[in-house]
């Protein structure tokens, strides 16, 4: 789920079920009512044939597409690309009608008509390393899309378990940006692709400086992903999913350490956000208002957000259905809702 940065009333959300497949929903009134783009119930469709907001077809056309190759399956054999679901929606910074989606099996799609129709940016899937990509435990998903605030042609994306990629020409061509990542669970720990990147965050005021929560390791790049170095420092465990950056202090970071890839809950059952005010390496636990015993939830990759108020608010949701909020940059926390289903995505808007 994601709201438009320039139109808070426009919110995009993805739904998927085994029964009815992929659905794309859009709200034009801040979430009060929802519709599938272009086919509003009780109204004639805006065009015929009607919009296909739930159709994500890999682009195989000779002009713009790439042949649908195979990718690596869990057992190392090759496996065909199959669309399964949308993982992430990212509306353009300057245009509410243009939105990117990351899907499983990994590919990037774009709509320029408010989600009514989707077209793949096939240069990513077809740039060359595709056959070496493999699914993570959650599937081969493109889960992170970061639009560069200074350069409209520059986009960063991340795929589990292929790694991070960047385009500098608006999505036409792509290159892996995984130098410096070390993943000991793959045959070549420093391979060009194959890394299980969990999430990447960037402060909009400082494009090019990226922070990554990898499967293990918290990483930093100061050169738009060309080189990464580890900033896990004194974290008690550097496995986790979410990572975010303070809206006003670009060297202030937040992660939620999770015990391990085998045990997806906080160490010792204590839910702690760790904050670094030094751009990494030196981390402090934030515990005030968070459960410090018998807490066995996870915090998923899209389930943390920050607001832009003077004292940066920080929000995160858990697989136990709680959403916690800190209105003072992480010093104090309180649950703002606590009985939801597992929280997959947290989005915050500052309304006048």
């Amino acid at each position, binding site marked *: 789920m994601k709201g438009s940065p320039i139109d808070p009333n426009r919110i995009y959300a993805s739904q998927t079920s*085994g*029964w*009815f*497949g992929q659905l794309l929903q859009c709200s034009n009134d801040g979430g009060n009512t929802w519709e*599938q783009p272009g*086919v509003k*119930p009780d109204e004639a469709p805006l065009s015929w044939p*009607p919009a*296909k907001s739930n*159709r994500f077809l890999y682009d195989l056309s000779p002009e713009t597409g790439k042949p649908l190759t195979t990718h690596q399956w869990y057992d190392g054999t090759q496996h065909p690309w199959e669309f399964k679901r949308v993982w992430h929606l990212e509306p353009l910074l300057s245009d509410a009608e243009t939105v990117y989606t990351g899907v499983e099996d990994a590919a990037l799609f774009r709509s320029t008509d408010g989600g009514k129709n989707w077209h793949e940016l096939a240069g990513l899937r077809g740039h060359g390393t595709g056959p070496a990509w493999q699914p993570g435990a959650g599937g081969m998903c493109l889960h992170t899309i970061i639009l560069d605030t200074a350069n409209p042609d520059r986009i960063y994306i991340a795929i589990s378990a292929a790694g991070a990629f960047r385009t500098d020409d608006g999505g036409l061509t792509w290159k892996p940006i995984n130098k410096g990542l070390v993943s000991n669970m793959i045959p070549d720990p420093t391979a060009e692709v194959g890394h299980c990147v969990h999430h990447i965050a960037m402060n909009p005021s400082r494009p090019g400086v990226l922070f990554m929560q990898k499967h293990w390791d918290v990483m930093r790049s100061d050169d738009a992903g060309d080189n990464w170095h580890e900033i896990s420092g004194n974290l008690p465990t550097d496995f986790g999913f979410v990572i975010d950056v303070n809206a006003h202090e670009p060297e202030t970071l937040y992660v939620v350490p999770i015990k391990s890839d085998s045990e997806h809950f906080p160490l010792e059952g204590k839910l702690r956000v760790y904050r670094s005010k030094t751009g990494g390496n030196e981390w402090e636990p934030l515990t005030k208002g968070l459960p410090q015993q018998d807490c066995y939830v996870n915090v998923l990759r899209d389930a943390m957000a920050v607001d832009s108020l003077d004292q940066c608010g920080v929000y995160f949701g858990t697989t136990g259905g709680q959403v916690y909020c800190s209105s003072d940059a992480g010093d104090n926390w309180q649950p703002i809702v606590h009985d939801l289903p597992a929280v997959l995505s947290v989005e915050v808007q500052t309304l006048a």
Partner: protein
Amino acid sequence: MNPSSLTPLTIRVILPYHLRNLAHVGPEVALQVVEPVTIRRVLDAIETAYPMLRGTIREYETGQRRPFLRFFACAEDWSLESVDKSLPSAVSEGKEPLLIIGAIAGG
């Protein structure tokens, strides 16, 4: 061709709960379908009347029924029948509905 065969018949279809919500309809919808009344023609009529249901019952590209959905007519399972086979006359005459049912999956 017999001119009467071009006159659309009113076919009743029962939709699963979530699709009713997407289309803002009740449990049963009535659709106009020209003979021969087949599953393909009924689905075509559903998707014309309710374009928000395109892609939710059958795949865009292949027309394949989504795996967790089944079709029933007159207490018989039509899920694996050819979509071009004529449905029972009780369905084409509007006495019985075509049922589109979600599999009981997940508990």
